[in-house]
């Protein structure tokens, strides 16, 4: 382990002990990257994965003469997101410059919002695994543009510490973001880590349902900064908070909150003080490390952006947008679980695997809900994991519904269906086409089965004698041989029936 990390590894207090002594107070800032076609203030493509610096122009590079123009779709998405979070939409809103020098922006400021955010005063109610409902108050949701991507080069660790130089790709610079800021969350208690994870999951789910973001955390579409402070039991004075950045998966949100509670509790119990600072979450080691202290660097000298005119979303427009809101994800989940009759664990499995849409579409295509669930969360998820891709990118709900139909009408056994699935994924056509081209249908012709069974029985006279003597369980050996001979394309139950019948009949 590099020595810098040894230094960073802090002493931790047991979580339960920490909660005995202190009350955690939380706050979250979640950045949602909008999936508009173009950037926030220029017509450059908003695309993930393009060649470096291919989506830039004088405006997003901050070159002289560049003039920003507000993307109407981004405003629309921000308002819809705000409405879905129960926010008020401001009658007057404007952009502000947040001034700082760092090469992730070539403008030397981030175009953000300061005293007039577009959305304010909302709330989201989340349900924890225990059934506890927690209402998280939203202070504001404002618009801003994203920064470019830095890659630190050289040095031993590949991190900024010890790097020789950095490379910058400004494709992401200027991509529209909505930053959602919560009020302080008190009373979280032992649920604090789970509240963090569930809240971020809820924001992600809402953004996805609205279609305003691709909402993929692994691609950085949803990013979370977690604020944590502790105050001694019985005190009503807030403790000093830290802001942990770079928390970019749901699991990390939970781990980072837990880690900060345990770390801060150890510092405070040891007579130390918490420094108000930015900390970085390290996914690999599961720790946070100190970043820069909050000081000069946060003296951003905000002022109204002179190149952009204020916005005044008309009430008619806001109401028009309100009508486009989808069913709230939490309500939709309740409705679907009831309609499908899934047990809680079954339903959670679908939700956690992000397969709600897939199962719903498969059911709509005619499959039973249980069969759809089993395939998506079982075989398809397994294949997707192995391939490192999303399950719903492998097959379409219509293909799966057709496959399930072939199983339920007896054309395929589960085992054959798995082979057909592989063929469908390999692009060999619809399930029916794969059955035909690979010749995979169940052999339902008793004549062919009987021939194979007779051969197997005569090949194992001792087994035949046992079956005739009443030992039906001895039939297993023969069934195995027959299934092998039929290359699995037989219904095992029917084979068993016929084996018992033939054992008595053959000479």
């Amino acid at each position, binding site marked *: 382990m590099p020595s810098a990390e040894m230094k960073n590894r802090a002493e931790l207090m047991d979580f339960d002990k920490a909660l005995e002594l202190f009350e955690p107070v939380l706050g979250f800032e979640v950045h949602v990257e909008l999936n508009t076609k173009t950037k926030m203030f220029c017509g450059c493509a908003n695309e993930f994965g393009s060649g470096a*610096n*291919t989506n830039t122009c004088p405006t997003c590079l901050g070159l002289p003469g560049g003039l920003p*123009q507000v*993307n109407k779709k981004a405003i629309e998405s921000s308002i819809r997101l705000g409405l879905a979070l129960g926010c008020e939409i401001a009658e007057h809103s404007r952009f502000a410059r947040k001034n700082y020098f760092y090469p992730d922006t070539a403008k030397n400021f981030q175009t953000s919002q300061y005293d007039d955010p577009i959305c304010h005063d909302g709330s989201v109610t989340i349900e924890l695994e225990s059934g506890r409902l927690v209402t998280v108050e939203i202070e504001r949701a404002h618009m801003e543009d994203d920064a470019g991507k830095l890659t630190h*080069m050289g040095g031993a660790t590949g991190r*900024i510490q010890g790097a020789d*130089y*950095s490379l910058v790709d400004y494709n992401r610079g200027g991509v529209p973001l909505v930053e959602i800021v919560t009020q302080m969350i008190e009373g979280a208690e032992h649920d604090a880590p789970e509240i963090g994870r569930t809240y971020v999951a809820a924001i992600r789910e809402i953004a996805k349902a609205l279609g305003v973001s691709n909402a993929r955390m692994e691609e950085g579409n949803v990013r979370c900064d977690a604020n944590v402070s502790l105050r001694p039991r019985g005190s009503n004075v807030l403790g000093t908070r830290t802001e942990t950045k770079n928390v970019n998966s749901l699991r990390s949100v939970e781990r980072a909150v837990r880690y900060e509670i345990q770390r801060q509790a150890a510092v405070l119990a040891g007579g130390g003080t918490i420094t108000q600072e930015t900390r970085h979450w390290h996914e690999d080691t599961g720790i946070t490390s100190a970043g820069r202290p909050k000081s000069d660097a946060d003296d951003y000298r905000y002022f109204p952006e002179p190149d952009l005119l204020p916005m005044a979303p008309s009430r008619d427009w806001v109401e028009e947008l309100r009508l486009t809101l989808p069913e709230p994800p939490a309500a939709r989940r309740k409705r679907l679980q009831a309609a499908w009759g899934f047990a809680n664990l079954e339903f959670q499995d679908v939700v956690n695997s992000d397969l709600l849409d897939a199962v719903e579409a498969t059911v709509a295509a005619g499959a039973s809900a249980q069969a759809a669930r089993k395939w998506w969360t079982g075989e398809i998820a397994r294949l997707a994991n192995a391939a490192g891709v999303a399950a719903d990118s492998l097959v379409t709900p219509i293909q799966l519904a057709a496959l399930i139909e072939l199983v339920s009408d007896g054309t395929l056994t589960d085992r054959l269906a798995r082979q057909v699935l592989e063929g469908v994924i390999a692009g060999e056509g619809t399930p029916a086409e794969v059955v035909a081209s690979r010749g995979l249908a169940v052999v339902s012709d008793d004549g062919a089965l009987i021939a194979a069974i007779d051969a197997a029985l005569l090949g194992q006279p001792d087994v035949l004698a046992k079956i005739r003597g009443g030992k039906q369980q001895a039939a297993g050996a023969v069934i195995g041989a027959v299934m092998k001979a039929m290359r699995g394309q037989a219904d095992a139950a029917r084979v068993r029936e016929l084996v018992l019948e033939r054992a008595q009949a053959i000479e």
Partner: protein
Amino acid sequence: MSEITAEQVAHLAYLARIDLSPLEITDLTHDLGQIVDSIAKVSEVATADTPATSHPMPLTNVFREDVVVPSLTVEQALSGAPDRAGDKFRVPAILDEE
């Protein structure tokens, strides 16, 4: 006279990454003080119900449709860069955020 101090001017110069000589700091402290005093005069006539003006033109909601327009080529984008590596801008390592 305003409350602008030489320390504030030096701090502001640091934030803006402007290198000022002691003489310039003295001059600017005086100049900025005058500006702040002048603005304070305006505040005297503005009543509490006068909203602060950030934009002098009575225009709002000037939007652009979400339509892609061609970007610069990589060569154009990098043409003003002091240094580059491949298709990326190359900058000195700055010890700050990871």
